[in-house]
């Protein structure tokens, strides 16, 4: 009796097993992708169903590009991305270096580190909103007790403070991810390099710049790409904290496009704007990848 008879090839069998997942991916990713491309070239005329959907060419793209509010939201997004990416990389690196040392309760600290990253973004926003409440918030109470301020500061109603507070909250919630990746990279550095450097009389600072940092280059570039994309996609945290206010001072491009699509029912304009932003992110990623090639990092 031949037990090795095959009913079908392994490839076909694998395809059958994968079919439900593939269908799900096509349905949940490919269809919305294609539909949003379609949307960016049409006007659904929602409040005028008699006209119906009309092909408008590149008008939706042009409308966005000629709208100063869109450019303003892009500017805020760039500022937000720049500060929070750099900030989270610096704080994350510092936390990773700290937790890479043999300190007491290191395991506990490493676990605690993950908490801000594990909390859903809307909850993070609500926590920060409570902390920053002008009359009942703990930050004002703390600063008042310490004698640093005499009057409550309206953190989220002030044009400048609101943006600063968004930067801080975004850095707070994103640095654990950075720290985690840096921590993994730090553990791959051979210890004998540090020992040799020490024998040669190198200070800790020199060892950091000449041994640690070169080893972290690849991780840094990967983090730059991931965090930049993340910053451009930011929505939940800002929506929960300020909803883009006061006025439009914290309205990043994600919020602007959400408002266009889901509040004003201008789905065409919103889809076109999203593709402009996608293009910008792709350009940034391209620059990062070029940088990686220049520095021969893989």
């Amino acid at each position: 009796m031949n037990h090795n008879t095959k009913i079908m090839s392994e490839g076909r069998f694998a395809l059958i097993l994968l079919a439900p997942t593939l269908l799900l991916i096509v349905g949940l990713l490919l269809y919305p992708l294609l539909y949003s491309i379609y949307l960016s070239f049409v006007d659904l005329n929602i409040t005028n169903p008699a006209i119906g959907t009309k092909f408008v060419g590149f008008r939706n793209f042009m409308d966005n590009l000629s709208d100063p509010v869109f450019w303003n939201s892009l500017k805020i997004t760039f500022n937000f991305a720049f500060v929070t990416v750099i900030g989270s990389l610096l704080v994350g690196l510092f936390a990773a270096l700290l937790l890479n040392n043999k300190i007491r309760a290191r395991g506990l600290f490493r676990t605690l580190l993950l908490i801000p990253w594990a909390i859903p973004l809307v909850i993070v926003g609500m926590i920060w909103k409570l902390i920053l409440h002008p009359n009942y918030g703990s930050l004002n109470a703390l600063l008042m007790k310490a004698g640093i301020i005499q009057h409550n500061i309206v953190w989220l109603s002030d044009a400048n403070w609101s943006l600063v507070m968004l930067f801080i909250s975004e850095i707070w919630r994103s640095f654990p991810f950075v720290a985690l990746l840096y921590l993994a990279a730090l553990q791959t550095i051979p210890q004998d390099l540090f020992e040799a450097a020490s024998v040669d009389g190198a200070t800790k600072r020199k060892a950091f710049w000449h041994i640690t940092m070169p080893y972290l280059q690849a991780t840094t570039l990967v983090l730059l790409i991931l965090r930049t994309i993340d910053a451009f996609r930011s929505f939940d945290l800002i929506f929960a904290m300020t909803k883009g206010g006061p006025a439009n001072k914290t309205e990043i491009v994600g919020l602007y496009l959400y408002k266009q699509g889901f509040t004003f029912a201008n789905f065409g304009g919103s889809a076109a704007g999203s593709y402009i932003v996608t293009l910008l992110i792709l350009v940034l990623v391209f620059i990062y990848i070029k940088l990686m090639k220049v520095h021969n990092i893989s």
Partner: protein
Amino acid sequence: MNKKTKSLVVLMCMVLFLAACGSNGNSNGSGEKDPAKPNKGITLTAITPPGMEDYYNARSKAFEEKTGVKVNIEVVAWNDIITKLTNDAVSGAHTYDIIGIDDIYLAKFADAEWIVPVDQYMTEQLKGDLMDYANRFIQYKGKTYGLPWYTAWKTFGYNKDLLKKIGVDHPPQTWDEFIQDSQKLQQEGSVQYASAWSWGRMEAVICDFVAIMGTMGAEPFENGKPNFNTEKGLEALQLMYDMIYKYKIVDPASIQFAESEVNSAFAAGQTAFQFQWGIPLVDLNKPENSQVANMTDLSLFPSKASSASTIGSFVQAISKGSKNPEAAWDFIQFLNGPEGQKDMILKTGGTDKFTAWKSVSEDPEIQKNLPGFEIAMKQADTALARPQLPWYQEWSAMMQDRIQMVLLKSKTPKEALQEADQETQKIIEKYNK
């Protein structure tokens, strides 16, 4: 096909067959029609904002007992309802039979044909009992689209005890008096800020702007045309700015506050005045909710020309996609008709919602349970509705930003209103293209 595969296929077919034979929610199980309950077995889906879900559930249970029609309720945050309904309508999912929308969105929903007219269900009795102001909220382009559920206008509350302490025996009636009383209260150390307002980046700031402009003797829109870039509009916006920066009588945190935060400050005795929806005295007089129980009262909103307020309503309408519009209407009437609204006010206290029916407002049982009822009804006569325009949402968002820019000192009131006027023209052009 081997035996095992065949058995599997047969088994799957049986499962599918049995599933198809299961209840689809529209059958009454026995297959027989109950003449007293012709719609028995139907299941409707409704969407509602939070805060009233317990009452809504109890009322839908009573409706099920009466008609056999079940109503499933989805509770969605106020600010997310419009987004959820827009997505539902655009995607063609038509999840809901009964939808609840703020009256300012009615024009958009009617123009987009996401809701259906209900004129055929409106009896003469219903039409005759409906208050004039309520009629405005449910009608658009000569058609009726539902019944008002949450109907409320803003009323002016003041803390009698705090005013007495500074030797003032009556609430302020003019803006000058309001400013003087506020300054005195602060000088005496009774409060840090005499009032807080809901001037956050949300519809609430428009509601207050409409009322304040109303007290100057004009409306932001007259006959559907923009009227805010005028002397009266400027006076209103200048007053909002001056109250924060010149007189320093308004909590600067108002720029991020919603109505609930304004009420919290008033209920905690931290402020002496508030402009709030409905009749907040009901809750303010409950010691478990407030530190100012029996210390507050209502008065007409201070004014320059004549008192004014803003009125709004939450309209319940039938979704275009509903497969059971008649049953949906029955429920809308059960919940929002005169009998339903009397029941709601008696059971929920009528704190921030009021009736749309003459018969209910004249009911002595209702009147005796609502402190401040008389003043609230007087204020209702002065209340201004926001315009029904399909582009209202876009205008409101733009206007919120312009008002906030003034309150953030990044634009003068004049610059902001001029800019808002130009932006409004652009929005109109876009919608009329």
